[in-house]
């Protein structure tokens, strides 16, 4: 019986519902752009690692901060967003039926607007007119059209989001009184979170940065712009994380041949993410003046609350693992672990992501710890941190999703060959990340700054130690970066293989059956007006007074500084 649910052949013969072909096309369009951005972003990352280690110098037509901007934008924004929409469109078609032609057209409109925005931003990065990094902090100033590109990106994502919401609520209308499929519920939580989060960046870009960059206003309120950015910037990380959690809750139980531990707890975790991921942006601004200690502390407390749904997720997922392992005959305290499909990349890649989330989450708690933030703020520690969270937990889960999502969409087989490639890819990614992120964390504690080109600070001894340690060395980061690049190229090949080369056939889109307790899930979870209402109240509580203060007691503003980036 061991691992019986996992044999590739079993999977292929056990097809339930599929993604409608026309929806698959829309989903695949996102996948093409996601993986193209992934490859270019990975090349930029490799170059950064080698430059910082002092191993290569960039040609003079290519700036370090230019490739740093490209790396951040392409991987953190473009790859993630496109992959997420590919996954959600496909999943909603699989679990709620095909999109109507009208809605699908709206989905294509979202894709088009998103892509025009992406191309516009990409062109300006290539022209070195937008080397402001993906946080684009004022008063550094990019070409005005760069902000137009960002606006289109957000608008496109909203249109795509509206498509998903429309499909969900259409389903609900047609199935009055029924419990919505978990995939749809989680999609709605993710999209609502994204829309509320983007309000901050919409106000920032439309009301502050575009008029200022085009010269319609002379000055910008810098502190307000940073606050609006982080109002958006923190929930952004949950926009990356929640789709990974969807796969953990909805697809992984099926892949390991089990059932989700609890439906109501899964829904509750997503509601808590929606409520508590937004009113917490100040924990990114703990080290700056103009925000009082009290408001920083209040948002720090709210930041810690958002750890609770992650603890719940950890319990649910490992509960599912144990239940499944025991149902397959596993006994003892840990022996059931043997019953899990360790050799199946569709399980193993996300599982590696889950394991990495333990140190990643612990690091996050350190970062958010108020005065302790001074030790690590803007050091390489932070870069090490988010290469574990988004760069490992989220990405490894997305890779794990790819192994069934792409062949499912392209009508090809998930083959043992692909599985082996995937296993090697996962190990390489984890090993590369151990060296790169591990060294980043430790060098960060020694004071090495993030977002900084190669420098020895005129051979100052405090800076030279970053080049001299056995492990705490920029060279370790570069070695990790090279291993990661090899893993990234492998992943790109896997994408090519799954899209065009794998044998034709069927691969299942795994969706777990409802949990045992699903029928008892309280109705209140479906009351979106209530949750959105509470989210708004929390946001108003956390932000009204500090933002009022920033506007009313603002110092004179800042002019544009576009010459500093060229």
């Amino acid at each position, binding site marked *: 019986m061991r691992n019986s649910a996992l044999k590739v052949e079993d999977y292929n013969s056990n097809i339930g519902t599929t993604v409608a072909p026309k929806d698959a096309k829309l989903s695949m369009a996102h996948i093409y752009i996601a993986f193209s951005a992934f490859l270019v972003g990975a090349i930029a990352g490799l170059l950064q690692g080698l430059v910082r280690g002092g191993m290569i110098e960039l040609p003079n037509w290519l700036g370090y901060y230019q490739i740093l901007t490209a790396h951040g934008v392409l991987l953190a924004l473009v790859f993630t967003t496109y992959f997420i929409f590919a996954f959600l469109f496909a999943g909603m078609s699989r679990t709620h039926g095909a999109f109507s032609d009208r809605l699908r057209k709206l989905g294509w409109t979202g894709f088009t607007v998103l892509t025009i925005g992406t191309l516009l931003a990409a062109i300006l990065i290539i022209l070195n007119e937008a080397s402001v990094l993906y946080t684009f902090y004022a008063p550094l100033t990019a070409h005005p059209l760069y902000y137009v590109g960002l606006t289109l990106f957000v608008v496109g994502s909203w249109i795509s989001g509206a498509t998903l919401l429309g499909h969900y609520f259409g389903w609900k209308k047609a199935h009055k009184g029924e419990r919505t499929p978990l995939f749809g519920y989680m999609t709605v939580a993710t999209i609502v979170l994204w829309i509320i989060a983007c309000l901050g960046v919409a106000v920032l870009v439309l009301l502050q940065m575009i008029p200022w960059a085009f010269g319609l206003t002379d000055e910008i309120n810098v502190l307000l712009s940073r606050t609006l950015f982080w109002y958006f910037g923190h929930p952004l990380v949950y926009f990356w994380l929640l789709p990974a959690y969807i796969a953990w809750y909805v697809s992984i139980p099926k892949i390991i041949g089990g059932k989700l531990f609890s439906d109501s707890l899964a829904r509750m975790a997503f509601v808590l993410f929606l409520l508590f991921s937004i009113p917490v942006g100040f924990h990114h601004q703990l080290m700056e003046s103009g925000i009082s200690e009290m408001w920083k502390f209040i948002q720090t407390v709210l930041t810690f609350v958002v750890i*609770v749904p992650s603890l719940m997720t950890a319990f649910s997922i490992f509960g599912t693992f144990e239940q499944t392992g025991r149902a397959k005959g596993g006994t003892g305290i840990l022996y059931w672990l043997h019953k899990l499909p360790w050799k199946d990349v569709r399980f193993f890649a996300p599982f590696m992501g889950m394991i990495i989330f333990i140190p990643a989450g612990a690091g996050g708690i350190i970062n958010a710890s108020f005065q302790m933030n001074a030790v690590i703020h803007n050091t390489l520690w932070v870069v090490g941190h988010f290469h574990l969270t988004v760069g490992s937990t989220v990405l490894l889960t997305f890779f794990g999703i790819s192994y069934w999502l792409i062949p499912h969409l392209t009508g090809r087989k998930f083959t043992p060959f692909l599985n082996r490639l995937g296993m090697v890819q996962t190990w390489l990614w984890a090993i590369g990340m151990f060296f790169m992120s591990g060294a980043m964390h430790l060098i960060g504690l020694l004071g090495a700054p993030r977002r900084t080109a190669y420098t020895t600070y005129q051979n100052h001894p405090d800076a030279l130690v970053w080049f001299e340690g056995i492990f705490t060395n920029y060279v370790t980061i570069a070695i990790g970066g090279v291993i990661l690049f090899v893993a990234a190229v492998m992943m790109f090949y896997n994408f090519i293989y799954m899209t065009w080369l794998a044998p034709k056939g069927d691969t299942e889109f795994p969706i777990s059956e409802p949990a045992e307790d699903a029928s008892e899930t309280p109705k209140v979870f479906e009351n979106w007006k209530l949750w959105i209402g509470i989210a708004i109240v929390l946001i108003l509580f956390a932000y009204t007074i500090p933002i009022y203060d920033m506007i009313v007691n603002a110092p004179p503003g800042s002019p544009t500084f576009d010459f500093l980036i060229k």
Partner: protein
Amino acid sequence: MHLHRYEKIWLTFGIGSLVIFLTVLGVSAFAFGQQPPSHMAKVDPQNVRDAAPFDEPGLRQINETTYQANIIAMAFTYQPNKIEVPVGSTVRFHVTSSDVVHSFTIPNTNVNFMVTPGHINMAEHTFTEAGSYLVLCNEYCGTGHHYMQMTIEVVE
């Protein structure tokens, strides 16, 4: 809605730990004054040199062992870019920016804060060991960001 007994134990343990963490942070902040740098004073970022204390950037002695250092951060240096104090001195750094966002960071100390234009930020540090201390900017501020540094010489 049913919570499994183990989940109750797990969440109680988890939430309990978070409460302890937050209490430690809160007590050390509000009872012992270990607050993150959150200075509220403001300046006109386009005319920082017009008003005190940045009309005379540099070091000022306050009493026998305490100094105030008024420093302007700018792309891609600090003014002044070298100060010297005797070992055992406590230095209060008052820093603002005359252009974009910078930081004022002394590796291996807890002095590490953002310098946003329009605002003055500050931190205090007692230098108990002699030597040359590096100050660097760890917020990207333009093409020459990695050249932005100053030194603090702590002498016997």
